[in-house]
Structures are given as C-alpha cells and as structure tokens.
C-alpha cells in the first residue's frame, strides 16, 4: 500500500491497537461520490487513517478501443471520456490530429470551437458548483443550477443535435456551421446566467455555513500544487496564474482577451470561489467570441474524413477543460487508425495521489466536499 510521508498520532493508535481501526467504504454506491469511484477508508474514530483508492469501475479500455477504430470513428468515443465536460476531449483530439497532419484550420472554426468549449465549461462548472452544494447537503443550489445547465444543453442541441455528447469537432474544423439566430439565444443565455450569479452567491458562497465548512479544508500550497500535477481552477486557487488557454493558446484564445481573476488561499473555499470567478469570466469570453466571430469556412476540406490517413508522427495537444488540463497524446503510424492515443485526465493527480495526503486525518464529514472541491471526475481517471 502506498503511503506518503508523515507519521501521525493516528498511526500510533493503529499500531498499538489493531482493533481501534475500522473501515468505511466511500463509494462506488455512495451519494457523496461523484461518479462510479471509491475510496476504502481505514478509520480511527471518525478520522481517516489511510485511504485505498478503488478505481476502474468506469474503465472501458478507451485507449485500446481507439486503436481499433478509424480516425473519424474515434470522434464518437472521445467525448465519453469525460462525461460532464465532453467538448475539450474532442477539441484536444482534433488538434493533435491536425498537428500531425500539419494543417491550420479556418479562423471561424477556431472561434466556434472556443464558443463550444466555453459553453461546455459553463455546464460543467454548474454541475461542479451544484456538486459542492450537494456534498454539503445544500440541495437547493444543485436543483437550481441544474435548470441553467439544461438551458445550455438545449443550445448545444440546437447547434449539434446532441444534448450531452456532441461529436461536433472534427479534424479540420467543426461538423456544421452555427444556425441562424443561435448566437442571439446564446447571448440571452449569457445574460440570464450572469443575472443568476448574485442569487448563487447568496445561496452558496456567502452562506456562513458553507464558508465554515470549506474554509481551510484540503489546503495545498502553490508549489506543491504545481509539482503534483494539479491544474485548472484548483491550481489557480493557489494563486498561480496557470491557464492552458493563455499559456499554450489554441482555438481562438490567442485573439481573445481572458481576464481570469485569481482567488488565493489554496483551500476548498478558494477552489470553490475560483470556479465561480472562472464561470463569470467564461460568460464574458463567450460574449467576446460571439462579438468577434469572423465569417468564412467552418471547416477545412480534408476529403472523405472516414478515409483519413494521418502521416507517421506524434503530437500532444492540451486543452483547458473545466477541471484542468485535458491532454491527448496521439501517435500515428501513417495508417487508417491511430497507433496509440493516450489521455491525460485532470482528475488523476488529485483523485489518486493527493487523496493519500489530504484525506489522512480528515474527518469523514469532509470527504465528499473535498472531492467536489477538487472536481474529481472518475471517468477521466478510469478511461
């Protein structure tokens, strides 16, 4: 069993007296667990002595399955890697393929991709914020935020034909152009979401109970967060200005202003607030994107895409998903199918490594909140 450093009084108790330790199963069939994942917690009293992560219930062998499917067929597989936030997967995969092909996609396609990515981010953030509420027993936030997430899904449906899995991005651009009047609806939705923010603030972020619960929970320093693979809002909550959209611009982000604010503190409260700040900024980014949306082609003509052959080579492409850096490392041997696709999900470092460090000594009360604050999404751990 893997144990990080540090010897606590709990260890002492458990060494002296084996019967002081008992086990609690936290997941997979547990309301506090986000998805099909599990921790087996060795407990002393109500404090956690040791954690045994129990991954793999969502393992579908994506990386193997992608090797057996055509380049274009894989597009239907990849959104399923991370269910609440599917579009970053599509974009990352397509970008990697485009990089190996050495093509540059049209400007309009890049903008549309950005819009889709930001919408996906909004939906995922709503789910994440609601998840924090749910983990704290504050179900009203979850119920109310889910309404707005559904409105986003409606727009997705209008754009792509799918509610959850869009399969919208293809190598060379996007599948179809934006329909007429869609952007107006999008802007309306942006206004609605922005007008909702004060209500959510009152319900969740300014709620004294929530502040008491989240404050100081699961603290991680900036240095430690950087060197243990934490990315995305969780890293920004430590005060590190790290954002793939800025660091390694992709899609239309090199042409768009991103004023992401940082919440400092590095604890669960800071992470929750960071999601809220990013949410606000994502709404603004969508407005800017729609405003600057250029005309032109929405995709590159790559011929019959199901007969696509990608030259020998490899490329890593990463995208700022709602939970952090989503990356696809694609290797091609020049054939009709990928030789290897390797996926970097943002949840692995927190869900499989930091849990050992953070959950030790934590009370059982806080496990679900801790998971929600790191936005641990089991599908991208298991793949």
């Amino acid at each position, binding site marked *: 069993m893997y144990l990080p450093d540090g010897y606590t009084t709990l260890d002492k108790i458990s060494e002296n007296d084996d019967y002081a330790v008992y086990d609690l199963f936290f997941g997979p*069939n547990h309301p506090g667990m986000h998805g099909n994942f599990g921790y087996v917690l060795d407990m002393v009293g109500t404090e956690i002595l040791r954690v045994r992560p129990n991954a*793999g219930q969502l393992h579908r062998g994506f990386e193997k*399955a992608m090797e057996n499917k055509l380049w274009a067929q894989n597009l239907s597989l990849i959104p399923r890697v991370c269910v609440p936030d599917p579009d970053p997967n599509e974009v990352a995969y397509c970008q990697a393929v485009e990089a190996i092909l050495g093509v540059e996609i049209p400007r309009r396609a890049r903008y549309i991709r950005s819009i889709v990515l930001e919408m996906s981010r909004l939906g995922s953030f709503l789910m994440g914020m609601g998840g924090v509420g749910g983990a704290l027993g504050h179900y009203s936030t979850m119920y109310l935020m*889910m309404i707005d997430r559904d409105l986003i899904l409606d727009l997705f449906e209008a754009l792509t034909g799918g509610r959850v899995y869009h399969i919208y991005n293809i190598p060379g651009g996007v599948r179809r152009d934006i329909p007429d009047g869609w952007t107006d609806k999008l802007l309306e939705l942006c206004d609605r979401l922005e007008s909702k923010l004060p209500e959510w603030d009152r319900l969740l972020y300014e709620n004294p109970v929530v502040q008491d619960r989240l404050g100081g929970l699961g603290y991680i320093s900036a240095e430690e967060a950087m060197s243990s693979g934490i990315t995305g809002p969780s890293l920004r909550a430590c005060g590190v200005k790290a954002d793939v959209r800025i660091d390694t611009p992709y899609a239309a982000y090199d042409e768009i202003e991103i004023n992401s604010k940082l919440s400092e503190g590095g604890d669960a409260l800071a992470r929750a607030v960071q999601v809220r700040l990013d949410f606000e900024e994502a709404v603004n980014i969508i407005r800017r994107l729609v405003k600057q949306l250029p005309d032109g082609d929405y995709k590159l003509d790559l011929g019959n895409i199901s007969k696509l052959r990608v030259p020998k080579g490899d490329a890593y492409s990463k995208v700022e998903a709602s939970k952090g850096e989503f990356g696809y490392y694609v290797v091609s041997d020049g054939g009709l199918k990928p030789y290897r696709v390797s996926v970097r999900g943002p949840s692995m470092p927190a869900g499989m490594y930091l849990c050992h460090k953070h959950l030790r000594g934590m009370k059982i009360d806080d496990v679900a909140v801790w998971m929600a604050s790191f936005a641990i999404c089991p599908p991208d751990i298991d793949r």
Partner: protein
Amino acid sequence: MEMDNLYLANLREEKQNMWGGLVNYFRKRSMWMLYYCTGCGAIELPPTMTSRYDMERLGMGPMATPRQADLLLITGYLSVKTLKRVIWSYEQMQEPKYVVGFGSCPINGGIYWDAYPVINHLEAFIPVDMSIAGCMPRPQAIIDAFEKLMGEIQEGKAIGYKRYEKHYDWYKKNQDAVLGRTEAVLKPWNDPFASNPSVDELMALEKGESNV
C-alpha cells in the same frame, strides 16, 4: 430444458389476490431508485431528478443504500468491476425490485461491444425489466420509461426479481463465468517480474545477460 413463462403464472396469481391491484398501485407510485452512477448515462439523471424535469412528482427519488431502493438503474455500459458491485447491490435490494437499463450498452454492449472490460448482455447477469434506447437517453425518454415501468408494475408484468429468484442458478452460472474466472481467456500472461526484483538485481541481471 423446461421452459416456463413467469409472466402468465404471475398474472394468474395476481388475479386471485384481491389486494394485488392496490398493492401494485402503492409500489408504482413510490419507486425509489438506488443512488448509484454505474456509467455515463448517470449524467442525464441530475436533470431528470432536479427542477426542470422533476422526477419527484412521480413519487420517485434517490435513495442512498440498496436496502431502501426499489429501482436499480444501470446507467449505460457496465464494466466487469462494476458488474460485481451491481450484483452485490442488486442482491441486497429488497423485493419487489426493478432494473432499468439505460441506452444500448446494457442490451448488447453498444459502442463498447468489443471493449475488453465491458460486458455485453446485462440480461444474462441480472433480470432487466425495462430498457431505454438512446445514447444517452434524454430526460424525457427516462421519464417515459419510468411511466411505462409503472404501467407494467400495475399490470403485474415487472417481475424480474421473481425470475431472478427462480432461475438463480442460471444467472449465477453466467455471473461466475465472467467474474470468477480462474483461467485466462486468450493467452495467460507470465509476469517476468513477478518476484518484485529491486533495481540492483535487475541491473545485475542485465549486465550478466550482456556479458553472455
């Protein structure tokens, strides 16, 4: 093998019981589902449960443990590891209990039909009372399925649990075939490092090989 039709037997039985219809009414109006996201279809459950589609108006709600739940939702594909837990949970549920499969994956494997960790036929392991088409099924489809299931409960047709009880041996055999394997399916793997050698030992070994 003798075939039997539990539907007809159950219908005959229910007709004799004057309270049957009333009991079925209470059962259908109060279905509690197990809070278990077995797969990606669970992403459409929050919208179904929450304010927009509001499952609770049908008397349905999530329940934390299998002891309390009536309804097991297999939300999408089922990896072998999850299958074990699903069966464990299903057997802990109290009768009457119903199983609903989401999407095509529980029916025939769906998009994962050739994936090594995902089973293809849920019906071989636990009885399924209702399947919903689509990947993933929309909230409307889910609610529609629930209403259909309610109809079946009222008519006494949702009797998967009776089938499971009666043909437990058959289900158990299938479960064991997948979960309790003792032999490799294709080609067994011999781990060359099964003895957990240390770095020094490995280095020494390699040096020896290169010298030879």
